[in-house]
Every structure is written in C-alpha cells, then in structure tokens.
C-alpha cells in the first residue's frame, strides 16, 4: 500500500456507517442517494462519509448522469486487513518460539 494514505484507511474504517458503506459497495455499485436512504442521516452526512472513504481510497466514485456511483476498492481493504493479519502471524510465530524456549529444560542461559 502506498504510504501517504495509510493512516486514513484505519481512520475511515473506525466508523460503523463507513464500514457498512464499504461492505455494501463491495457487492456492487451503489448510488450515494440509495446509500443515503439506508441510514438515518442526511444525504449530506452520507456524502461526507463517502468522501472520507474516497480519500482513504477505500471506495471509488464515478458519475452516471446525475448519480454518483460508489464502489469499494478491494485492494486497499485487503492491504489494511493484511497488515493486522501479518502482525498476528508474526506474534503467533514468536509465541511458538517462546513456548519452545520455555519447554527447554536446559533453561537458564543454555546455548542452543
């Protein structure tokens, strides 16, 4: 993932409405007005959420007539999620090794 937008991704995903927008728009394009009808908030508020997601490159927007169509950007989502996955994997491996050293009854200062 390109560094400049990195922090924005998690910030954008920290909001429940925005996560829901991303989820819906993963299944296909949704117009901003259709999205706005799904939430108990104004069109402008939803538009703002979409703008935050767009800045984080979590969604892309295109125009069709007077409509604005939103679609999720799978690559960005995968990258953000992948970082936490990878860190979990790193720690799992570390803890595996921790367990091995623990179990090594040679214990204190033994050289391997």
């Amino acid at each position, binding site marked *: *993932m390109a*560094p400049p937008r*990195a*922090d924005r*991704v*998690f910030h954008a*995903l*920290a909001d*429940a409405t925005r*996560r*829901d927008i*991303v*989820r819906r728009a*993963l299944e296909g394009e949704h117009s901003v007005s259709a999205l706005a009808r799904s939430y108990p908030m104004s069109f402008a508020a939803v538009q703002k959420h979409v703008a935050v997601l767009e800045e984080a490159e979590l969604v892309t927007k295109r125009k069709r007539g007077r409509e604005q169509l939103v679609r999720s950007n*799978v690559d960005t*989502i*995968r*990258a*953000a*999620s*992948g*970082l*936490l*996955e*990878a*860190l*979990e*994997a*790193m*720690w*799992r*491996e*570390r*803890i*595996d*090794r*921790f*367990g*091995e*050293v*623990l*179990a090594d009854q040679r*214990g*204190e*200062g033994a*050289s*391997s």
Partner: protein
Amino acid sequence: MTVTNVHKDPANLSLTITCEFEAAIERVWQLWEDPRQLERWWGPPTYPATFVDHDLRPGGVVTYYMTGPEGDRPHGGWDVVAVEAPHRLEVEDWFADDEGKKSPDLPTTTMRVTIDERSGGGTTMAITSVFPSLEAMEQVLAMGAEEGMKQALGQIDEILRADA
C-alpha cells in the same frame, strides 16, 4: 502453549495476543529478563536476534540487532517504560541506524506485556502492541516477520465485520 485470544483493533491500530503456558510465572519472566533466552525467540529463524544492551529497568535501554540471510543487520531497541517483575513490562520499541543508534525519524511501537498466574496452575501472558501508523506496522513487519508477510493473505471480511 496455546494462544487463547487475539484482538485486532483497527481503530486504535493495536493488536493484543493472549496465550497460556504450562510453566511457572518466574520461568515465563526469565524469557524477557535473560537476554540469552530472549534472543532465542524474538527473531525468526531467518533473522535471529542478538541483544547487546539489556538494562531492564524503568528508564533503561535495550538494544539488539538481527542478522539476515544476506548478512544484513537491521538494528532496533527498546526504551524501558515500566517493569514489575514478574508481572509487567512496557517498552517503546524503536528502529535504529546501522550503528545501533535510535532513528528519531522512524515511528516507535508501544509494547505492553502482562503476565499473571492462572488459578488452576500455569501462566497467562498478554502482549499488546500499539502502532502510531500503518507505516509503523509495515516497518515492524519488514524487520521481524518474513513468514508473517507471506501469510498476509487479506481477509476482507474480518476488518469489516469488527463490531459492525
């Protein structure tokens, strides 16, 4: 040894991993306290760690380097924030230049370790890492987790499902 819980918090850029060991709490603490035992598990086999300074007291500094397959030697270190043997350790984990000097421009990661005796015997250890940015996560991975990166197959749903 069992990992009993993993909590990924994308909003706060943190990861907590909890595990249980069939070992006494003092023995678990030794693996942090003794640099020779610490270096046996800190780095992956492809990048084994060597701890140089190891002053595990509040205000103390721990330094280490890892040796890569090409002979490359990334350096890092900890500023020790809190120590309560054998229960608690908190450090700021940082990156260093080739001489082992802390790089002021690179992000630091907060690492908090809590270790407790289980009532039924054995020991529970929880490690929380708090990252200042996604870049910091990437750097940590680049330094310590070759295998981790390989396993970084994105699970789109997981991050999206978080307390939805």
